[in-house]
C-alpha cells in the first residue's frame, strides 16, 4: 500500500532538514518538493496559509506545519525507531529543551548578527550564556538522546548548522575552545549516517549564508 508522504521544504532551511533527518532515521519513503522561498508555490500557501513557511508535511493529503509538531506526528504514526523518549518525564525534558533552542537560542543568535556596534558585545554574551546552558544538558552523554540521535539532537541541528556556517558570517559564536563539549557533539551529529545524508554540502551552505547575510553584514 503506497502511502502518500510529501515534504514541502527548502534545502537551505534547517527546519526542513529536521524533518528530513527523522524521515531518514525511520526509513520512510517520501516525495521531496523543493520550494523557492522567494516564489512560494500555490500549494505551499494552500497547505500553510497561516505561516506560509516550510516545512509542510503532507500525509494522506492532510498537511501539518511546524517542524517539531511534524516530528511528533511522524513519531506517533511510524512507531519504529522512536525519536522521542518513552518516559513522560524524559519526553517533557526533550520538549522543554527543544523549546529553549527555538525560543531562546535562535533569537539570541539572530540578535548577534543584527546588533549594532554598541549592542554586539552584550548580544554575544547572552548567546554564549544560552549555549553554555544547553551544553550542560549533554552531561557526559554521547547525544542528548543518549547513545543515538533523539528529538533534542534533531531540534539541536540549528546549533550544528551555526557551527558549520558561522565562518561565512565572520563569526565564531560557537568557539570550540569555549564550548568543547558542544563542539564534540556537533562533530558526532555531523558524522551520523542519517544526518550526513541530509546535511547540505558545506560549501553550498557557506555560499548561501554569505549571500543571504550580505545585506546585514555590509562591506567587509
Amino acid at each position: 500500500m503506497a502511502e502518500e508522504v510529501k515534504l514541502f521544504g527548502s534545502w537551505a532551511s534547517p527546519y526542513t532538514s529536521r524533518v528530513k533527518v527523522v524521515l531518514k532515521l525511520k526509513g520512510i519513503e517520501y516525495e521531496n518538493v523543493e520550494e523557492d522561498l522567494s516564489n512560494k508555490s500555490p500549494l505551499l500557501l494552500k497547505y500553510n496559509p497561516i505561516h506560509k513557511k516550510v516545512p509542510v508535511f503532507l500525509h494522506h493529503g492532510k498537511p501539518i506545519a511546524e517542524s517539531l509538531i511534524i516530528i511528533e506526528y511522524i513519531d506517533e504514526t511510524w512507531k519504529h525507531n522512536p525519536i522521542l523518549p518513552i518516559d513522560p518525564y524524559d519526553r517533557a525534558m526533550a520538549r522543554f529543551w527543544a523549546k529553549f533552542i527555538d525560543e531562546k537560542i535562535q533569537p539570541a543568535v539572530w540578535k548577534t548578527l543584527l546588533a549594532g556596534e554598541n549592542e554586539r558585545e552584550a548580544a554575544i554574551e547572552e548567546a554564549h550564556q544560552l549555549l553554555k546552558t544547553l551544553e550542560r544538558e549533554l552531561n557526559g552523554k554521547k547525544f542528548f538522546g543518549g547513545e543515538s540521535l533523539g528529538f533534542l539532537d534533531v531540534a539541536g541541528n540549528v546549533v550544528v548548522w551555526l557551527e558549520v556556517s558561522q565562518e561565512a558570517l565572520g563569526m565564531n559564536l560557537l568557539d570550540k575552545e569555549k564550548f568543547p563539549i558542544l563542539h564534540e557533539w556537533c562533530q558526532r551529529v555531523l558524522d551520523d549516517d542519517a544526518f550526513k545524508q541530509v546535511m547540505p554540502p558545506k560549501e553550498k551552505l557557506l555560499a548561501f549564508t554569505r549571500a543571504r547575510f550580505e545585506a546585514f553584514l555590509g562591506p567587509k
Partner: protein
Amino acid sequence: MGEEVKLFRTWSSPFALRIVWALKIKGIEYETVFEDLSNKSPLLLQYNPVHKKVPILVHNGRPIAESLVILEYIDETWKQGPLLPKDPYERAMARFWAKFGDDKVLTSIWSVFIKQGKEQEEALVATMENLKFLEEEMKGKKFFGGERIGYVDLALGCLANLISIFEEIVGLKIVDEEKLPLFYSWMQNFAEAPIIRDNWPPRDKMIVKFQALLDAAIASSSSS
C-alpha cells in the same frame, strides 16, 4: 499510593491557570505554592533555573517548566479525562493551534492592550486576522476540543477572561460578537464551564493589576 504533586504559581498567571484547570479536570490532588515574582523563592529558582518563571509542576520531586510542556506531561501521566485527541493528525492540529495561540494570538492581543497610537492600530489588525483563523477552526464545534474542553481550549482559555478585562481598561472592542460570533460564543461557553468558572482570579484584582501595568508602560514610553 501517595503521589506528590506541587504547582508553583502566582494568583494571576494565565499560564499557571492552564495547569490548575488540567489538574482539576483530571481530578488530581495537588499542593499549591504561591510565588511572589518580585521575591522569588529559592525553590522556584532551584526548580526552574533556566527561566525562573511560573508555572512549575513538581511531580514526585521532579520539576517541569513551560505550561504547554507541563500539559502534555500531565496528559501522558494521568490518562483520565484526556486533553489531547487520540488520533495523531488531530493531536498535531491541537499542538499547532496551541502554538499559534502563544506565538501569535496572545502576543497581538497583548500589544493591543499595552501599545498606543499606530502600534495599537496595527496590533488590532493583526489580532483580527489571527482570530479569524480561530473562528474558522470553531466551525461545527462547541469547544476547540469538540464536545469537551481539550488542550487547545486550555491553551487559549485565558483569553476568555483577559480580553474583557483589556477591553474594559483601554475602552476598545477586541472581539466583536458580530464579526467573530463563534469565537465570542466559545469565550462565553469556556468561561462559564464547570471548573473553569470556579477558578478565575478575582476580576477586580485583575483590573487593578493590569491598569497598573498599562500606566507604567505609558509612563515609560512618554518619558523616553
